[in-house]
């Protein structure tokens, strides 16, 4: 009952005209960049981060979160119509979405992915409402050692469970942790790795790093590949969108399974939506009595991953807000944004900042309903967006990156750093080194060091404290299992080619 009262209070916060406006702004912007291939939601969130510094924390978070889940709605559009994912998690939707579009069923595919997104998102929000306070209550007893261990687990999971070489992921996480050390050590006041550059004494600017690694590197990669695909003159009308009875039948259970898988994966620290969609797809295929239909336009093949995608995105707020441990790079940027506002996510957030927590949760509901409206009757508008040529898009994004990074500290050195990180990210990505673990390591670096130090102080410098506390021990054991597994396996089985077979 108390939960419902708190949720009611949250709705009061989220239904003010201002909050509604920022929610609408966030989800529209999210859908916009989600639809367009070549601009990721991380770039957009990092771009908007400096804008939110002028806002109340609640309004800022509502908008940033709206971009994140709005982008998941939009990203399936390009997958279905162009066979190009609008963002990484939507890659799997290409497998059956594009064949549906070739069969003249694009409208139905768009309808199904939108409904699946809505159901997946709603399911995870329900979980967030009832489970997050419980988890927060449990986490209130976490000690510094426990936090250290869960962060180590999150970083290990994020770098070993993603697509590609787990060892390269781990190397990038370590590099990110090192970058997180740059700046003034809070305990001794010692400048570390600042090389006499004043702009570095407060540490590397998160926005500069994120924009470089994702924004600039993305543009370099797209331009290097030559052409970003463009839509033909597709016209989708509301009439073409109605699924048949058979479609509904296929949709029902796969959507529910996708929601459950997505919510579960999203809650785990260190696992993002990409893993959730791959697992949902693989699961559907295994359960299906007609697995040969997958890849030929099976409704299950788009319903489950899209539900999982949105469920994982909403569920990812559970560990981020209640433990302060982000699940993926995007949540890490959002965590960074909260820290700038002086809000430290953790178990206390749910009680001490109850208005903020419940306001954000309530805004998720509102945002998802807005997205349903934006994506069903207005789908034609978003499809038209696909015809914006990339030759106009990338100069505009580059311009926004420059002015956006500059505006954080009014400092041109930050923009130069962005270029440096962009070039670095571009080359490292080309050689199979992923950027997301680096960003996660960067955000968690100072927190990990602080908790490690605090744990040792609390235990009179006894290293055994990390294995003597049962919670910490469990996290460390899980980390060890992950490490052994990924070293033994050498290359991830979670890649696309394996999901297809």
């Amino acid at each position, binding site marked *: 009952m108390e939960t419902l009262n708190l949720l009611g209070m949250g709705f009061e916060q989220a239904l003010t005209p201002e909050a509604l406006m920022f929610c609408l702004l966030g989800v529209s912007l999210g859908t916009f960049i989600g639809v367009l291939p070549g601009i990721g939601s991380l770039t957009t969130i990092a771009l908007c981060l400096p804008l939110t510094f002028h806002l109340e924390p609640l309004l800022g978070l509502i908008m940033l979160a709206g971009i994140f889940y709005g982008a998941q709605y939009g990203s399936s559009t390009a997958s279905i119509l162009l066979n190009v994912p609008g963002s990484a998690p939507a890659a799997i939707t290409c497998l059956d979405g594009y064949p549906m579009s070739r069969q003249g069923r694009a409208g139905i595919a768009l309808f199904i992915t939108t409904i699946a997104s809505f159901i997946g998102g709603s399911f995870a929000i329900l979980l967030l409402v009832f489970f997050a306070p419980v988890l927060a209550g449990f986490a209130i007893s976490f000690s510094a050692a426990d936090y250290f261990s869960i962060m180590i687990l999150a970083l290990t999971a994020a770098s070993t469970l993603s697509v*590609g070489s787990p060892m390269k992921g781990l190397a990038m996480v370590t590099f990110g942790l090192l970058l997180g050390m740059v700046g003034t*050590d809070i305990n001794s006041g010692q400048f570390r790795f600042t090389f006499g550059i004043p702009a570095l004494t407060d540490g590397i600017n998160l926005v500069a790093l994120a924009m470089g690694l994702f924004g600039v590197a993305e543009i370099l990669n797209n*331009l290097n590949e030559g052409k970003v695909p463009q839509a033909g003159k597709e016209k989708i009308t509301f009439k073409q969108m109605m699924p048949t009875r058979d479609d509904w039948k296929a949709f029902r259970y796969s959507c529910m399974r996708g929601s459950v898988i997505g919510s579960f994966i999203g809650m785990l620290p260190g696992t993002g939506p990409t893993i959730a969609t791959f697992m949902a797809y693989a699961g559907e295929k295994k359960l299906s009595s007609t697995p040969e239909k997958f890849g030929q336009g099976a409704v299950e093949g788009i319903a489950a991953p899209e539900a999982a995608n949105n469920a994982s995105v909403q569920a990812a707020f559970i560990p981020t807000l209640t433990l302060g441990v982000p699940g993926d790079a995007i949540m890490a940027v959002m965590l960074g944004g909260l820290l700038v506002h002086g809000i430290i996510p953790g178990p206390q957030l749910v009680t001490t900042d109850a208005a903020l927590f419940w306001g954000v949760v309530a805004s998720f509901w509102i945002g998802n309903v807005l997205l349903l409206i934006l994506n069903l009757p207005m789908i034609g508008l978003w499809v038209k967006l696909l015809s914006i040529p990339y030759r106009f898009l990338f100069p505009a994004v*580059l311009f926004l990156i420059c002015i956006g990074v500059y505006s954080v500290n009014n400092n041109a050195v930050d923009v130069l750093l962005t270029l440096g990180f962009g070039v670095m990210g571009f080359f490292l990505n080309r*050689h199979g080194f992923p950027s997301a673990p680096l960003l996660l390591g960067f955000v968690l670096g100072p927190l990990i060091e602080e908790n490690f130090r605090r744990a040792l102080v609390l235990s009179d*410098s006894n290293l055994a404290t990390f294995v003597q506390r049962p919670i910490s021990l469990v996290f460390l054991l899980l980390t060890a299992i992950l490490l052994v597994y990924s070293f033994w396996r050498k290359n991830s089985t979670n890649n696309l080619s394996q999901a297809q077979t």
Partner: protein
Amino acid sequence: MTRFFKQQLLPTLPTLLLALTGLAAGITAFTYDVGSFTDMGPGFFPLALGIILVLLCALILWREPEAPETTSSDEKGAVHPFAWRPFAAVSASILAWVLLAETAGFFAAAICQVALSALALPEPRWRSIIILAVLLATGGYLLFVMQLGVPLSAIG
């Protein structure tokens, strides 16, 4: 020599550079107070991380020596050969902003930046690019300078 460079050295270069970064970080950390487990100094964590990074890079070179070039964005795992033109254009574009924003003013910086970025295209269409540049500069000025108070002057 060039063949050796292209086939052997180039693919491992990123790993080697990362290892070198770890090594440099570890050595630099020694110039800070490292301390001990009982009393961690500011150099302790960076030193540990530097060592781990070097070890991981060694592991990569040992276990995945061929280091095939793969991009995460390409579903087929194919890597497009490196093209100088877009790379140089994007770099020049950002550099122009860095150099001009505080010296030549917002509009000059923005227009140069957008125009230079268009050089990334094989056949830039200058008329539309200039229109885009002026539109972006005006909109950016209204939002960031007038509205958000970024201290940049319009001209010089």
